[in-house]
């Protein structure tokens, strides 16, 4: 099992969710986060004055999947979240040791 963590542009969330749903993903977790990457923040202009916003608003998606789904999920997120402009985000894959579904007590892949 793997935990896929994707940091994406907020307005791309619906596209990514739709792409993952089409793959049969049963659930995911969304957080509104702020941070920076190579973009090092962004500049906004108000009345001609430039304000440097060092932490940019992003959305973090976390989804737990079986190992077999990893390539498809990575491709789906990459395609759905890509604009081609700086700040499209990152996808991280981490090994998942154990999962428990609280309601039924199921564990492991059965809890996905």
């Amino acid at each position, binding site marked *: 099992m793997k935990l896929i963590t994707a940091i994406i542009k907020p307005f791309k969330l619906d596209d990514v969710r739709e792409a993952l749903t089409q793959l049969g993903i049963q659930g995911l977790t969304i957080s509104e986060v702020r941070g920076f990457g190579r973009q090092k923040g962004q500049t906004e*202009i108000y009345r001609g004055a430039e304000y*440097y916003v060092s932490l940019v608003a992003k959305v973090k998606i976390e989804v737990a999947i079986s190992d077999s789904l990893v390539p498809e999920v990575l491709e789906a997120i990459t395609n759905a979240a890509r604009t081609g402009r700086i700040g499209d985000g990152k996808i991280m894959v981490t090994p998942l040791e154990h999962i428990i579904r609280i309601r039924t007590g199921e564990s492991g892949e059965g809890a996905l």
Partner: protein
Amino acid sequence: MQAVSAGDTAWMLTSTALVIMMTIPGLALFYAGMVRRKNVLSTMVQSFGICCIASLIWMICGYSLAFSTGTSWIGGTTRFFLNGLADHFHNGLDSAFVLGEGSAEPVTMTIPESVFLTFQMSFSIIAPAIITGAFAERIKFSALCLFTVLWGILVYAPVAHWVWSPDGWIAGLGAVDFAGGTVVHINAGIAGLVCAIMIGKRTGFKRKDLSPHNLAYAIIGAALLWVGWFGFNAGSAFGANGRAGLAMLTTQIAAASGGVSWMLLEWWYNKKPTALGIISGAVSGLVGITPAAGFVLPSGALWIGLISGAVCFGSVSIAKRKLGYDDSLDAFGIHGVGGIVGAVLTGVLAYGPLSATKANPEGTIGGLKQLISQVETVGVVIIWCVVMTAVIVFCIDRTIGMRVTRDEELEGLDMTQHGERLN
């Protein structure tokens, strides 16, 4: 006893309420939307507090110093605490007010003095409230209260007397200011610039993100300012008449053309027409037309709006950045600069028949003579305002201090000055 006109009085009562609305909530929201979240309450309460303090100053001494007959430099002290107001009433009826009674050129109005002085009070409120935009996010509230008292007495009241009282010396030069381009906007804008320079920049200026927290507030505030400005300008006709109608029309045209002017320039210069830009342009147009509202035709208003919007855009977006002062919310960049543009253009675009009277059959006509009078007035107001504001700021700074500490500034004025915050 001269009778009052019910129609004129009704319009002036309405105008007074509209001008109060410009400050609370108009200016309060306009400014509060442009500051950071931790300074929203303090920014709004600055306008509200000034509304309270300036009203009392006007009652205690400001009105007497500005509008009672005295010397050409300052009014008298006979009307302190509005002394004598009760003498006008006979059998429950008030008589019409005579401005400059006892002077060489008294003006008999068609409204009671109570209405005239409350209308003028609303102007004395918005002027210091405009200044708060220059030192937003770093001023000590106690210092602001003291500044409001001193500035109202030492700067606003004398300039109002010079320009608007029949025995004022600037009025004698032939300069005109229909609704307060010099008295309110140049005065407040220049004072704002002096304050911004003397108090210093905000911590993190040009380094940290000081961007507006909620421009929706600013848009609502600007819209309230626009509507209230009909009271400001059309009310300055002091009657429900054709000149008030024309002032309302020129106000609308200048606001619209100011908004369009700023929007187009910004679109070209920064690649996007911003919400803050469009509303700033409209306010610039409104400031520009203020001295001219009852003196120019609609075509003149169009030019004033276009030019004010463009010049204020240049001042705020280009000049301020290059010069490096922190006039946080552009009290000078919009009110000071727009007021100067409007006052000068009044001398160019004034159409005589609008202001012609039996005593002055030609009226105020745009031309070199009038332009010189206008420029002289602007210069005098700037000099007086710079000197007196600097003295006031210096004295307050040396006694109780003008500015909060660095830590208080970083924590925000809402908590440190008022012990409250937005949840």
